[in-house]
């Protein structure tokens, strides 16, 4: 059997490997993009309101800033208190086409020493954490940012 792979939030990302993308919505009237997705009303106060259409966000962007968490975050973050805490980087990424900044964890093994503001990163599928036993447990899947090796 094995643990069931479940997105940490439904409807925020899709695909595997190179096809993996974050999902937002775009207003058909004013072109504003929303992530997390806005499925009710366009939030642009100057917009009369258009249909909100699901769109994949740009795969690549540039680091706006970054940090990490050297202490275990509180619930509802899922982590095993029995295991030593391993900090994950948190990266804020500027997407040029959408003209917005999206936060996400860095991939495993990327520390703040590997990052620089302006560096290019791409979105990849990742695992946020695991819960429960091997038979009936859950693997929570998420998005992560990975440096492409290109510098500004």
């Amino acid at each position: 059997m094995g643990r069931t792979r479940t997105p940490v939030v439904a409807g925020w990302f899709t695909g595997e490997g190179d096809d993996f993308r974050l999902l937002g919505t775009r207003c058909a009237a004013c072109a504003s993009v929303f992530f997390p997705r806005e499925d009710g009303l366009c939030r642009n106060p100057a917009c009369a309101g258009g249909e909100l259409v699901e769109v994949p966000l740009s795969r690549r962007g540039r680091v706006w800033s970054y940090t990490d968490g050297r202490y275990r975050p509180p619930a509802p973050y899922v982590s095993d208190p029995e295991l030593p805490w391993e900090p994950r980087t948190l990266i804020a990424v500027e997407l040029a086409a959408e003209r917005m900044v999206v936060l996400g964890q860095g991939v495993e093994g990327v520390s703040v020493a590997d990052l620089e503001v302006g560096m290019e990163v791409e979105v990849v599928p990742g695992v946020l954490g695991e819960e429960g036993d091997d038979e009936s447990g859950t693997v929570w899947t998420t998005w992560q940012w990975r440096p492409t090796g290109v510098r500004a």
Partner: protein
Amino acid sequence: MTGDVAVLGAGMHPWGKWGRSFVEYGTAAARTALADAGLDWRDVTSVVGADTVRGGYPGYVAGATFAKALGWQGARVTSVYAACASGAQAVSTARTQILAGLADVVLVVGADAAPKGFFRPAGGDRPDDPDWLRFRVLGATNPAYFGLYARRRMALHGDTLEDFARVKVKNAAAGTLNPNARYRKTVSAEEVAASAVVADPLRLLDICATSDGGAALVLTSMEFARRRGVRDPVRIRAVSTVTPTYPTTVPDLPDIATDSAAGAEPQGPGFRASIARAAYEEAGIGPEDLSLAEVYDLSTALELQWYEDLGLCDAGEGAKLLRDGATALGGRIPVNVSGGLASFGEAVPAQAIAQVCELTWQLRGAAGDRQVEGARVGVTANQGLFGHGSSVVAVR
């Protein structure tokens, strides 16, 4: 000026980790403020409580909770919640009631008993709450956001870890002079550098702690103050409680992303700067008129950001202003002479009220060893979760 209200009383319960109920801190602060005003609790015609999420319903209905603890006497009551801006919204509500002629004497109270460790979202499984989501999906604590801002400043403006430490050294030195502060010891740059990293590049001593504490103000109409023989009270001249304008372009707590600027060009100076601008405009003053400022130093780096957002210096010049000594006691524009959150720690509903308490004592010339010479105009700045801006201008 017709828009003024008088600050007749200010009071605090000393901040710390006392392990008692927020009600106790709030009522103690209220009694101190009433005694300071020379008024009896039964003279109060309206009580406005800044809510805490501690203590279940009593915290959510803070106004009535403090009124009951002080002894029911029939006053009008209001409770407000705006996260870190709760205290400023309580001041705003009190001022509005006074200016509308609905109340003459208003007691404003905020108090909290903070939990240990990181602030965390309310309990339960709530995937429609952005505050719950940022913890669940990213493990993004408040210091994580402060770390993002700090690192961005380093990349954009060349701020250094030493600059950040210098803010803590300055505020800790001020805190030693304040009997209401929780931390009353000087801190050296070496001690900041030796403290553990919490969220790169920020260390434990760059980030404010969580505290218990309470603060209260007695606000009255100018007419009431005159009737009581107070000719020249400290006056509140402006209270800004603005929201951001779309699209916001800087990631802000508790959001996972900014707005998109693809459908609307960003206008104006950005959210934090717009908070101060609204207050200046309402007060008819500019940053050049200020004698002092109390700003929200949730982190050392954030204090530097506020210098720029308040217009004390140009964008990117915050660290230089600090290095030049302008923002220290005795400098051109002292900032956080109370010791700031660096010396107090966060007691969420109390802190924006505590900022106004400090302005009150400073403008009265009653701040003792931390007195800013000849203080005439002071500003506070603060920001609450979910787009609550707040800034208060007080004058003498």
